């Protein structure tokens, strides 16, 4: 079952083309990783898919709905962690969780989620007093709190330490087991290899290659994803 389909999406900022006829689809229970340098168009692709940005050409279908116009009910089944988190000033962790939880129809147990993400002891703290890693965990928690069918995670573990990253991976792998679909961007190749069934490499808004991690590696002269990635990007593989 196809959860989302992107058809020939193109996005321009003035004369600059930031997405150039990109196409792919994601099935139920599948995890797609979108990789590329900074500025390759990963975030623009995700934001265009979500309707935050308007595509100049092409079409994005999520659960059979054309995303050209925002349909708020759709976000009952879609979870999103945007690249830069932003919250109201002077809001406490439990207030933020509560406020987001009531926007969904599903009944959400915020304390259980805070426990799962190791943030229960921070619930009465101001969000701005959390560390970068804790804020990142909180933004992932907010994205998955309503048990969405399709989850977008833009640079999901940036700022997290090794232990916290692995905790998040474990959680996401469990979501995959429960047939949830994920679309993520990441700069960490170990993360991509652990979580993703398929990957899409972008360079200057264009698709370089897509396929399973193994297929992408096999199509390069190297035997691991990091070196293959550098090779596809036209960078020198130093070691």
């Amino acid at each position, binding site marked *: 079952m196809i959860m989302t389909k992107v058809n020939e999406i193109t996005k321009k900022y003035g004369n600059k083309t930031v997405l150039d006829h990109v196409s792919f689809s994601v099935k139920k229970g599948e995890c797609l990783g979108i990789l590329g340098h900074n500025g390759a168009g990963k975030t623009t692709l995700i934001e265009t898919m*979500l*309707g*935050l940005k308007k595509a100049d050409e092409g079409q994005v279908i999520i659960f059979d709905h054309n995303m050209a116009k*925002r349909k*708020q*009910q*759709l*976000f*009952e089944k*879609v979870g*999103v962690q*945007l690249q*830069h*988190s*932003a*919250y*109201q*000033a*002077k*809001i406490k962790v439990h*207030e933020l969780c*509560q*406020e*987001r939880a*009531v*926007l*969904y*129809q599903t009944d959400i147990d915020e304390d259980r989620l805070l426990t799962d993400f190791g943030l229960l002891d921070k619930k009465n703290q101001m969000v701005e007093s959390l560390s970068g890693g804790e804020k990142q965990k909180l933004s992932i928690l907010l994205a998955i709190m309503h048990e969405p069918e399709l989850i*977008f995670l833009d640079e999901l573990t940036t700022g997290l330490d090794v232990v916290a990253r692995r905790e998040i991976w474990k959680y996401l792998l469990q979501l995959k087991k429960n047939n949830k679909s994920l679309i993520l961007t990441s700069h960490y190749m170990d993360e991509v290899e652990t979580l993703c069934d398929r990957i899409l490499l972008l360079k200057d808004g264009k698709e370089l290659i897509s396929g399973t991690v193994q297929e992408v590696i096999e199509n390069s002269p190297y035997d691991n994803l990091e070196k293959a990635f550098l090779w596809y990007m036209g960078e020198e593989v130093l070691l």
Partner: protein
Amino acid sequence: MKKYLTYLKIEAILALRSIDLVFFGVIMPIGIAVLIAAIGGNKMTAEGYTYLQGTFGSLITVGICATALMGIPLCLSDYRDKKILKHFFVTPVRPSMILLVQAVINALISIFSASAIYIILKLGWGYDISGSVGMLILSFMVTMFALYGLGMLIASVCRTTKSVNLACTLFYFPMLFLSGATVPFEMFPKWLQSIANVLPLTQGIKLIKGYSLSPNPKNIVMPFIILLSIALISIILSIKTFKWE
């Protein structure tokens, strides 16, 4: 409904944690009321009522003016600037809910401010409403709808905090000083009265003042129609034109 109230409660807590709304919505209107009462108080005017009776209707609108034209637009433009609305975009929340919650919080502040002014003037200067209390409350509500509609529209249309600041200044200060809210309308020369007449708050004050002085004031149909039309049009437009980013 319970979910809506939870959302409202949290946003209200956040609004109260920021001193701006409390200052402009409560402290400043009460301060102006006390100042004007101390200056004019129970002195009789040529119209046959006390200075306080003549200005009460205006004084209770200062809170509406501040919360509608500063509170709502500045809060939402701040949310937009900080990308908080962008985060709301990817949830099922509707623009109408975001606008409504801010309007209700600011309305509660205005009602508190107006009630506090009434109590202070009654206890301190023995002020009494000589007109119709019910119709005065209705007039207050209609004025609030119109002004909040305008505030919501500014919040929706303006993209940046800078443009909201400009729009607020262009609406807030003329309304505060020319509508009769702080300086009695009757003191203006005729030409200035004609200009001030186009301001929605002037119409609101005419209504409120009319019902604060008499149970059956004259010439109140037009202000009612104008205010309800402004409320209806601006609320619909604010929902239609709401910008997330």
